[in-house]
């Protein structure tokens, strides 16, 4: 299976999963940080509960899209109970593939003039 095809086999992602991957795009994060980031970026529209977050993290971890990171913040900022996760190459590819899929869908919506207000042609 080529890399492209492998990443596409995970599509489509659930919105929660996509937002979690997106939240990790700019570096490793711990669970609470991911939750905050998703909430902030969506203006509070996507609120993950602890169960949903870790259910998704478990799924992403077992399919190899994220791993636990060894890099930790500076000592005084660190909480040793926290684990940090980062995207793997696969995780990044899947996120990109999902973004592309959405992009294409949006492009088609434009082509169909979906965003224009309906009126007399």
């Amino acid at each position: 299976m080529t890399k492209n095809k492998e990443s596409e086999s995970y599509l489509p992602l659930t919105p929660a999963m996509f937002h979690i991957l997106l939240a990790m795009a700019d570096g490793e994060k711990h669970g609470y940080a991911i939750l905050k980031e998703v909430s902030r970026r969506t203006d509070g529209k996507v609120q993950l509960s602890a169960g949903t977050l870790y259910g998704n993290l478990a799924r992403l971890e077992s399919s190899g899209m994220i791993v636990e990171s060894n890099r930790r913040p500076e000592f005084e900022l660190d909480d040793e109970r926290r684990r940090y996760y980062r995207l793997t190459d696969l995780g990044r590819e899947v996120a990109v593939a999902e973004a592309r899929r959405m992009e294409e869908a949006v492009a088609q919506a434009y082509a169909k003039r979906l965003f224009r207000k309906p009126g007399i042609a």
Partner: protein
Amino acid sequence: MAKEKRSASERFFKVLVRVFPFDFQTNYAGEMAGVFREQRREAEESGGVSATVKLWAETIAGIFRVAPREHWEILKQDCAYALRMMAKNRGFTLIAILTLTLGIGANTAIFSVVHSVLLSPLPYRDGQQLIFIRQQAPKIGQDDAGFSVPEINDYRSQNHTLSSLVEYHAMSFTLFGHGDPERVRTGVVSWNYFDTFGVQPILGRTFQPSDEKMGAPAVLLLSYEYWKSSFHGDRTIVGKTFEMNDKPHTVIGVLPPVPQYPVENDVYMPTVACPFRSSKDHIENRDMRMMEVFGRLKPDVSVAQAAADMATISGRLQREYPKSYPAEAGFGTGASSLREELTHGARPTLIVLLAAAGFVLLIACANVANLTLARMARRERELAVRTALGAGRSRLLRQLLTESFILALIGGAAGLLLAYDSLGLLVEFAAKLTPRAHEIRIDMGVLLFTLAAAFGVSIIFGTLSAASTGGDVSSGLKEGSAGAGSGRRRNLVRSVLIVAQIAFSFILLIGAGLMLRSLYHMLQVNPGYVPQRVLAIRLTFNWSKHKTGEEIALGAKQLLDRAQTEPGVNSVAISSTYPLEPELLSYGQSTTTFQVEGHPLATGAETPTANHVSASPDYFKTLGIPLLRGRVFDDRDDQKSLQVVIINDALRRRYFANEDPVGKRITPNDGKDWYTIVGVVGDVREMGLDHTPAIEVYSPVSQSADARVLLARTIVDPRILATRLGKAVHDVDPQIAISHVISLEEARHESLTAPRLTASLLGLFAALALLIAVAGIGGIMALSVSQRIREIGIRMTLGAQPSGILRMIVGQGLVLAVLGVGIGFIGALALTRLLKSLLFEVAPTDAVTFVSVAGMLIAAALIACLVPARRAASIDPTVALRSE
């Protein structure tokens, strides 16, 4: 305060997280708690109580949304893994599934019978309200005296506990207009009989009050079975007329398939249509008792209250009509639930069989657990590797349970098929024990039972195999660890399982052995007559053409003369019944009370009762019943001559111990009529080979006018003559209905169906158990030998002889066998009491059975151990020492 609150909600959160699979908890529970703590702090700071409540709601919903998915993921992995392992170990899988199929199948089959017969409510509307009312006269041996018409009217009008009270009696009439004259078993019932039972017809209607008015047009209801068998389920049957008792009878409906009690009937008619029941004598005479009575309890009335009510009425009637209820008869009336009445005969047998099937299942469980353990020895390293890779102990347990559940589920499905397949046989078997047999089916309840059995079984053997690995799985990683630690523990568990299997097998074998011995006794017992080469044909004269005693006696005489001329016939007789007649066994024998002349009853003594049989002169010759004194009946005994009887030896021993009874007289009715004893014949087991012969009185057919059976002793196989004799009967009178043509040997065979099937089923279960247990003991010894090859090699190098090794291995196997037999012995002593009511001339603790079963089981175990022992004895020490 804040800290307390925090710890309380944190504890609650931790409890919530428990719904996740164990591995998930290990990985993420701590972090989740951390995240939740932060969320809560934030919610408290920003939004106060409402934000906190919202957070809790979302968190709980999230957990319950995600957790099932996690469990499902793990289940999928475990199932896939289990199926891979099962495919890899085909031999193990096959044997395990086969064992479980037999175990679960046997239980499902027996349970389907128990469920339908003993546990299900009666298939009548509010069946628990139905009762059977019984009038007894125990002092004259009448267990069920029946009711007369005046009595029924009294009980109906005087009771306070019943919403309705209905009567029933069975007759045989001849039905014309449907091919040959046909003898139909007829239930004669009150008009509201079926309404009381809540039975709706599947075609037409049931009876209504106008059908019971004197002079109403005669109507018939057909039973479902009769409609199916005789009319092929003809849906246009309603409105057709047939002739019975010289009157046209119109079919008004067809009943659904419901159990009919006390016996199955072909048709039902209202009381006025029965020529006997509607006669003036029957309607007015309080002493003409022949009806059975059923009732429906008023709401919130118990059976005990109804029974008390009936007893009160009985007492009142006895005071009012002392002549009809002589004190020395001990009349009394009680009530019992109809369900109890329908099923009490089947209960002991079914409970014994269910217990036996349960034992088979336990043995199957122990066997599969043992097989799993043997396999675990080989999987030790695999399990250790998985533990080292981070699989928790509970994760492994879960994996093992999944594997066992899949095995049990497949075994359960196959067992269900097996049970389904054997259903026909079981219904036939149960029909010998209860009228409810036709209700037996595999329904939702049985399916749930099978599923529960499969689930229970998988938990038992899954846990057994997991428990025996102990906590120390990692020892499996060390080199050469096969014999140490968990291995030793496993061998102990295996030995315990083997001992249990042997013990259970022993109990089952004892049960089967006792039943077989009992059956053997029944076959050996002298029935008092010679059943070989005798044919019996049930006859029903058209009553309307043979009204008087003379007419019947004449008809019987003509029949005998004609039948005697058939080639191949040795002797013929006509009688009211014959020994072990199937109908006799379900209806009961007709009886008569009597007193001996010159032997007045002591005050308070019981009036003796004897079975009563009508017989033509050659009856005793035809059946091979020996004449002990006096003479048999002959042509001199007719309606005009002296009234005579013949008694059996049991009666002579009881009432004429020191005198010759021939020439003495007895009376059935306080001296109104006297009968002279002309002969004494041998005792016959009329009512069952396991019943002691009752005292019996024979009257000549020519005087009693009771002719219901033609008997013929033949030179060849009697079945060959059946058609010709039937034709001979119709030559004499084409209006005689013929039914139940059967040889006396067949009748004897049939009377043994229930004990034979019980013995066969128990025998089958016991054989299965023996096979499984003996294979198990052989298997464990083989495994033990292969685990100890090095040790045996060392022993031999140190000078042990092969014969010594052989003795050592066999001895170890025998210790297990003897231990199992010992425990089984105690168990059997405690349990075979359950069998007591089913046994004939065998004590539940019969020494012969106990000793021979013990011997057989130990011998079988010995043979099973010999194979691995010989292998051990033939080990080459040099090779053994190199092996691992």
